[in-house]
């Protein structure tokens, strides 16, 4: 399919034309950029400069109602509620890949209707990473700053304009609905995009060789290295909350006098209560076991169960950790163990 050009000053018009969708986009809130639902793109400037977090909450909300009930029983099943189609605008290629990593968890023999319905009704409009961020290491995980995997459309910022590539039927529908904002792309535009892609991939500084890491993990479960790695962790959970492939959740009942609802909330394997038995026994009592489990889950258990690493190399857990727990360093340490 031929590529298109979206002039930068038509970006707001493009987004306005998508009013029938629920529009998620990265917006700056204090010092962080997060994906939020944008009501009016004129009032909420989209931030494509920074590495926005929490794209996953458009499909897997931080807190969502499963069903409601009163004393007579269950009233409604929230998975049956229809909702509008979502567009996630400005999602990074690594985050688009992350849904492919989470999908098999929510599929399987007991499919999860909440996640899967929303996933089906979501269009992913990506933004290629012209400049990698400080801790990006997607190329170590089989990704790249211009990866198109899992995306419906991808935009690449050229000077004063976006180079737009249509990658799926869903993407085609979007550009058909918004045709008035586009002009055709030239061969020169395409060449610029190629050059940027090469330059960006070459600009990724952080790397780790993961060849053999799963096998390595087989033999070091009891190694003292876990305690060392966890010594500066405070179990705040930011690594899991901002991780695009972390999906663990808690289920809680919230009640008022006459009504209630069962909700699920993001949970974190870094929290002690996550695995705490009612008896007081905790199979992962300290941060060492919990950090170990997180690394095993992403680099061994996910491989055992689904054949892929549970990591896309976005580096957010490194950038956002208040105590500089560095996943790349930790993985390199693991690799270097005899």
């Amino acid at each position, binding site marked *: 399919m031929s590529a298109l050009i979206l002039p930068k000053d038509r970006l707001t018009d493009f987004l306005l034309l998508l009013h029938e969708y629920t529009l998620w986009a990265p917006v700056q809130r204090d010092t962080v950029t997060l994906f939020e639902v944008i009501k009016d793109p004129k009032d909420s400037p989209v931030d494509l400069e920074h590495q926005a977090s929490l794209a996953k909450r458009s499909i897997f909300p931080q807190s969502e109602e*499963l*069903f409601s*009930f009163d004393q007579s*029983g*269950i009233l409604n*099943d929230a*998975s*049956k509620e229809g909702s509008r189609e979502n567009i996630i605008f400005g999602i990074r290629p690594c985050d688009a890949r992350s849904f492919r990593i989470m999908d098999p*968890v*929510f599929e*399987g023999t*007991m*499919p*999860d*209707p909440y996640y*899967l*319905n929303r996933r089906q009704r979501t269009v992913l409009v990506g933004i290629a990473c012209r400049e990698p961020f400080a801790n990006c290491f997607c190329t170590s995980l089989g990704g790249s700053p211009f990866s198109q995997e899992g995306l419906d459309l991808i935009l690449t910022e050229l000077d004063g304009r976006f180079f737009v590539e249509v990658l799926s039927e869903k993407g085609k529908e979007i550009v058909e609905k918004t045709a008035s904002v586009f002009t055709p792309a030239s061969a020169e535009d395409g060449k610029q995009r190629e050059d940027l892609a090469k330059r960006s991939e070459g600009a990724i500084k952080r790397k780790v060789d993961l060849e053999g890491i799963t096998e390595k993990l087989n033999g070091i*479960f009891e190694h003292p290295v876990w305690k060392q790695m966890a010594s500066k962790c405070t179990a705040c959970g930011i690594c899991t909350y901002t991780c695009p492939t972390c*999906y*663990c*959740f*808690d*289920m*809680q*009942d919230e*009640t008022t006098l006459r009504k*209630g609802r*069962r909700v*699920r909330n993001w*949970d974190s*394997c870094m929290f002690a209560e*996550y*695995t*705490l*038995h*009612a*008896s007081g*026994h905790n*199979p992962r009592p300290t941060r060492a*076991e919990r950090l170990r*489990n997180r690394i*095993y*889950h992403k680099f*061994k*258990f996910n491989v*055992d*169960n689904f054949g892929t690493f549970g990591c896309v190399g976005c580096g957010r857990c490194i950038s956002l950790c208040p105590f500089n727990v560095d996943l790349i360093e930790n993985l390199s340490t693991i690799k270097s163990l005899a």
Partner: protein
Amino acid sequence: MNNPYVPETATILDIREEASGQRPIKTFKVALTDGRDFNHQPGQCAMVGILGIGESMISIASSPTKKGYLEFSIMRLGKVTSALHACEAGDTITIRGPYGNGFPVHDWKGKNIITVGGGIGQAPLRPIIQYILDNRNDFGTLDVIYGARTSQDLCFKQEILELEKCDDVKIHLSIDVGEPDWTRFVGFVPTNLMQVKPSPENAIAITCGPVVMIKYVIKNLLALEFSDTQIFTTLENRMKCGIGKCGRCNVGSLYVCKDGPVFAYATLKNLPEY
């Protein structure tokens, strides 16, 4: 798409007190409100809950050969189990399931069966015992080794003592510390196992209890020359979803809720963290 998170309702038919004191245990006999059969296997579990309180994964303490009802033997420990203990016959609870793999009872035809239970760990072993008794000709001898901290903590006492009247069932009870009226074995369950000394010949041993007990029972079974594939256990971990998604109940790459709770020692010994 079916919604696996929405539970069915069930009615409590009867509540029996199994153990009193600091670690109270009650057995709840329940039936699904729509009268449907639960179609479970011995060793499977269900999410038992109360709307507004929450859910807990509980092993089903009755055999599928007992039609028309399910039983759950529950120790009062946390939020949900405390609320369940406050329930009365006639109250409505919620059920999801059955979950997990269950015991491979069909592979055990013709085998001699030894169950080794500790405390509330007898609950998931009870459906095996019932299943064997209801299909008596399919199995060889049955040895029930069961112990608890005190005689007050022993569950299913009456029905186990009743079993002693059967010629083809041997009962071996124990308590950890002696009591004036106790005439049976005094000591830990793994020690009692060595006294009973079951033969591994054509046998299957299934154990459930506190983690530390399970470890020593398995050690002793191996000493008695039971092989890795003759030893089974059933595990528990904190759970929320029950269907392998919420993440917390993993032992290595396996989830207790979905890949367990029953594990042959041949599988278990290769899992980290066990």
